């Protein structure tokens, strides 16, 4: 018995290790339903009915939206302009907009990862300040498309002010708004909503209230997920 005991122990640990790995993989692959979602929506398949999110913090009001309110699919992204995967997701979401047109609606929520990303808050503030002059999405696009340029910069203020000029903003107002309480409150409100929805990192995308697993965010997979939600597949 003593001779086979070490092998029994080793096999037992191997079994537990494989079982734990499979459980963790399964848990990580499943979409996370909203914290306050009704039990009916607490499924692992993409949502087909609206989630009751009346109890959730609303986030910044009004939110930054692209697409009609009547769109059957709403993608709500919690993003950080300095986060490289968010930068990679940016053209994918634009592509989805081109492909699905008015069938999808995009909402962007600020979720700067501070202090890991030293310029993330300044970038979020710049986008919000541009939004005060009706140019949120223009600044949003510039920040993502030039992420690698400003990410390594020591001082990003002149760079962001350059973007503000480029999209035709009133620079003095932009400079004031970047440091305003109103902009800070919008970012905070989005963060509060994100925490309530279980956002732990960026990018996190919710489709009609259900989190789209990170591994399904590449264009070819996201397209399938959206088509399923639209009942086209």
């Amino acid at each position, binding site marked *: 018995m*003593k*001779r086979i*005991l*070490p092998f029994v*122990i*080793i096999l037992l*640990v*191997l079994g537990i*290790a494989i079982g*734990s*790995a499979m459980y*963790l*993989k399964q848990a*990580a*692959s499943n979409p996370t339903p909203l914290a306050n979602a009704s039990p009916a929506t607490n499924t692992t398949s993409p949502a087909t009915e609206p989630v009751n999110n009346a109890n959730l913090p609303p986030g910044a009001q009004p939110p930054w939206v692209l697409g009609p309110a009547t769109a059957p699919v709403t993608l709500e992204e919690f993003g*950080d302009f300095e*986060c*490289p*995967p*968010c930068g990679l997701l940016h053209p994918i979401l634009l592509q989805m907009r081109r492909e699905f047109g008015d069938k999808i609606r995009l909402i962007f929520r600020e979720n700067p*990862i501070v202090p*890991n*990303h030293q310029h993330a808050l300044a970038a979020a503030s710049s986008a919000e300040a541009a939004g005060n002059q009706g140019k949120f999405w223009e600044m949003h696009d510039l920040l993502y498309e030039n992420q690698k340029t400003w990410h390594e910069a020591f001082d990003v203020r002149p760079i962001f002010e350059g973007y503000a000029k480029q999209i035709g903003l009133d620079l003095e107002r932009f400079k004031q708004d970047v440091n305003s309480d109103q902009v800070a409150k919008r970012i905070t409100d989005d963060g509060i909503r994100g925490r309530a929805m279980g956002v*732990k*990192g*960026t*990018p*996190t995308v919710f489709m009609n209230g259900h989190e789209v*697993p*990170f*591994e399904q965010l590449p264009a070819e997979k996201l397209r399938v997920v959206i088509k399923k939600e639209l009942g086209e597949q």
Partner: protein
Amino acid sequence: MSVDRAAGTIREEANPAVQRSTKLYIATAVISLVGLADAIYLAIQHITGESVRCTIVSGCSEVLSSPYAVMFGTPLAEIGAAAYFSVFSLATLAAFGYRIAGHLLLALVLVMCGTSLWLIYLQAFVIRHFCQYCLLSAAVTFMLTILMFLTKRTRVNSSQ
């Protein structure tokens, strides 16, 4: 000292040095389980792509999405999990008197220690971000290395 011919091992239960090294091997096996759990968690994060996401948890997304997180096409975390499981297996066998397992264990832990030092260098000077799960793994490996040296010293002292 008794010879267990059936198992092909030499048993030295009466020797206090052997008893001490057995305890050290048991400690090695237990500590390696911490490393195994850590490596499995990191491997799952890598497989599901969660490691690439930017999180409040400092540094892990930068470290785990770097090219250094993959070796020979295999995520380093999976290699780590296999290494920690090997440490557990060898330490368990060594604790039960399989001396060859003790020698293999020492070699394996030294390789892991060298790899950990290299990975800390990469995090500090190349990637310039630290991932606490990777640091936990390095800490476990360093503890295993200390245990291996204590075991070796016990063996050397007993043979003098």
